[in-house]
């Protein structure tokens, strides 16, 4: 008991990761990474982000980046697909390769005892992928099935339509995986070109957490990344939400309707971003949010409703989603519109703000719950161009937000008349307009 009570004082001001623990490591070759040393478990987690992602692929190569990233562990250097995967298994290394509109990301967690051979495998995957025809055909067939699944999945259908309305002919409008036609036209040669464009050392950020010293890491950075090429393609242009307010309906045989909704949002580097973040918590995240209280807790109209800021690298949306039965979706959408209007008309209360601040500051340390999670945060902070001491100042930023700040930002950001809804299902009592 005594021990636990004395702990209270120690941890009341404790931070998830002490800022002094984040080290900026620069290799001889000039590659930098942020590192948190954590020697209590013999593992190392590495999060690697390449800025650019699927948005930089040419219009006639849609889906190339997604397919390329999926092929990185399917044969590289001296290994064919099976050999590469078996070598990974023998080292018990865990690699994952992913693509988004803004980046290609690689997460690796490896055993300390296998650090060097594991990193060598990773190097081969990142720098010498083979894109053998047989592996290419196999993985393309898998992407084909992913696309077909998305075509009948209500959430994917709604998201896809929403993005195409929001972004018009900007690359953000495309589906990440491409289309059945676009991927059918791709070749292994396209994979090599896409790889050269997407994985470049000048668009690289790295976060590392684990049983490794800065000196070891500096050497590894050069080993793994030094042969990557320079970027030759442009990052895509900034864009904004292009759709106006309204309702689209995609007919889909289902007892429920899924609605994806939103309008223009706020960029991550906007000085008002953190204010908008706190505001949105009050409106649409968590159990106590206004949307959840009004639509789920009071009326039982849904199992899940929420809203979120969607700051992409080159555009920003303010979005939300809900599922409700076909009979109830019209009422649920009316309630969402009401909450949106209420926020601009009346703002938030001091009580709501304080509750949000307590939750957001108190729960911040929960995000730092594993080496992999921390590595991912370190990479994400660099991607967003945030300072290395961000983690120590972030809660102060949340606590500095006032009701007046939120009401000002609500007026700027929250636009009930511009909300665009895409509904997938057979909704009753609502029509497209």
């Amino acid at each position: 008991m005594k021990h636990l009570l004395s702990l209270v004082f120690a941890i009341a001001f404790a931070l998830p990761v002490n800022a002094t623990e984040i080290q900026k490591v620069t290799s001889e070759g000039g590659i930098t990474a942020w590192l948190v040393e954590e020697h209590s478990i013999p593992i190392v987690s590495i999060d690697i982000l390449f800025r650019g992602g699927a948005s930089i692929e040419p219009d006639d190569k849609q889906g190339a980046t997604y397919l390329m990233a999926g092929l990185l562990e399917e044969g590289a250097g001296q290994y064919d697909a099976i050999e590469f995967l078996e070598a990974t298994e023998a080292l018990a290394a865990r690699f994952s390769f992913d693509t988004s509109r803004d980046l290609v990301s690689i997460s690796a967690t490896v055993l300390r005892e296998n650090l060097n051979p594991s990193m060598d495998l990773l190097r081969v995957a990142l720098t010498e992928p083979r894109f053998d025809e047989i592996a290419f055909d196999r993985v393309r067939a898998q992407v084909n099935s992913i696309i077909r699944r998305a075509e009948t999945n209500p959430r994917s259908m709604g998201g896809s339509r929403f993005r195409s309305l929001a972004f018009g002919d900007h690359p953000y409008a495309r589906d990440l995986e491409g289309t059945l036609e676009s991927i059918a036209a791709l070749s292994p040669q396209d994979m090599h070109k896409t790889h050269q464009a997407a994985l470049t050392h000048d668009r690289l950020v790295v976060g590392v957490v684990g049983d490794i010293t800065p000196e070891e890491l500096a050497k590894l950075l050069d080993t793994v990344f030094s042969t990557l090429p320079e970027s030759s393609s442009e990052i895509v242009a900034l864009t904004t939400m292009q759709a106006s307010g309204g309702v689209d309906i995609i007919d889909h045989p289902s007892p429920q309707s899924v609605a994806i909704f939103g309008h223009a949002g706020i960029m991550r580097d906007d000085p008002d971003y953190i204010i908008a973040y706190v505001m949105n918590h009050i409106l649409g995240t968590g159990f106590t949010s206004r949307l959840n209280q009004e639509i789920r807790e009071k009326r039982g109209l849904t199992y899940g409703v929420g809203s979120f800021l969607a700051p992409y690298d080159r555009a920003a949306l303010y979005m939300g989603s809900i599922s409700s039965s076909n009979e109830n979706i019209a009422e649920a959408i009316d309630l969402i519109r009401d909450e949106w209007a209420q926020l601009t008309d009346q703002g938030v209360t001091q009580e709501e703000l304080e509750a949000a601040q307590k939750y957001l500051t108190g729960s911040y340390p929960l995000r730092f719950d594993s080496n992999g999670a921390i590595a991912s945060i370190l990479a994400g902070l660099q991607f967003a161009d945030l300072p290395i001491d961000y983690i120590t100042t972030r809660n102060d930023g949340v606590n500095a937000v006032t009701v007046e700040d939120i009401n000002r930002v609500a007026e700027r950001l929250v636009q009930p008349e511009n909300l665009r809804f895409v509904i997938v299902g057979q909704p009753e009592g609502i029509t497209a307009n």
Partner: protein
Amino acid sequence: MKAYRLLIVGLFMLVTPAIAQQAKVTTFTLDNGMEAVVIEDHRAPVVTHMVWYRVGSADEAPGKSGIAHFLEHLMFVGTDDIPEGEFSRIIESLGGNDNAFTSHDYTAYFQRISTEHLELMMTMEADRMHDLILNEEAVRTERDVVLAERTQRTDSDPGSLFSEQRAAALYMNHRYGIPVIGWRHEIEQLNLTDALEFYHRYYAPNNAILVVAGDVDPADIEALAIKHYGELEPSDGITSRVRPTEPPHLAPRRLEFHDERVSNPYIIRSYLAPERNTGAQSQSAALTVLAELLGGSGLTSVLGKALQLEDPIAVSSGAFYSATSLDPDSFGVYVVPAIGVSLQDAEAKMDKVLTQFLIDGPDPAQMERIKAQIRASEIYALDNQNGLARRYGAALSIGLSVEDIGNWPNEINAVTADDVLAAAKDVLVLDNSVTGWLMKEIAE
């Protein structure tokens, strides 16, 4: 009124990973029968606090399917001390996250929060173990939420509906054949009395397990547990969990499920399979290795190599096994055929691979790689506080002991090629199976 997550055995569920031997684990039992496990993780001032009840949907009375899960939702309503709707609000105001989940065998509640608030979490969890207060309106509204949950997670998803039908066909007598969330027509009839009867019978310290993982001292946790949980009265409604058992299965069962929303047809077969039992886990260990060998890792496993590389008729394939359950559960294999390949052909090729495996047995090099990965997963597990807490909670709530959990990696390590082959021959028997085809069109 949470419960975003139901633990239903999923198609692509991984085999149960092994337990971290290095985790520092302490156990104790309170005088009223409540068991406790403390898992130390001193890296950050964060704690996972869980209470597991040894009751799940397979313990429900006939006609009341879904009551275990419905009660789980209702546990967030309020108590004599906590006004309606305030439970999660209080936790959020302290920066904590809370939720709950229900399976066939257990129901669990948890919070993740700064260590300084642990004592309050214990106070609140102990309070709702005996002083839950419900009213008709809260029950009606929450029943609508549960129906919306069923609509979202099951009725709108052909794969989930198919899975329900397959489970119903696999179990002829045991309640694992009934979905955790319940059949819709029975959920619609669940009421306040059903919820309270279930609550009063099963929610008591002698049916509960406390799991605390995080930056804590086990002696402090024991003192706190005595203070907050130690005074609770045990229930005399807790009896041994003997459920109806399966009769011999004398014929393979087959079903076709058609739904116009299906985009990728597949064939999946589940066999009735033994589960881990206290002091007797070796066959389960062999089946765990078998699932890894046949289909645990996609391309490098037996099914993947044969059906995605050598004779590439499949887009994906795999095997799964649920080892950690109270009663015999299932072992399964599936193949998603490539475009132009029929389910019939896919099934025939799958069967050919299985037959050949029963002749050849495992490849020693593949066995070694699998064991290396399982050993590594011991170390990786230490990086996942919440995962460790769940592992202990789930195992203890189905009657395994901390020793069983500790022995599990050794059991896996001791598995030989002969063990795998013997387990495969025991379990991969068509009479014990249900084969399902998920498809868009009626078969010609």
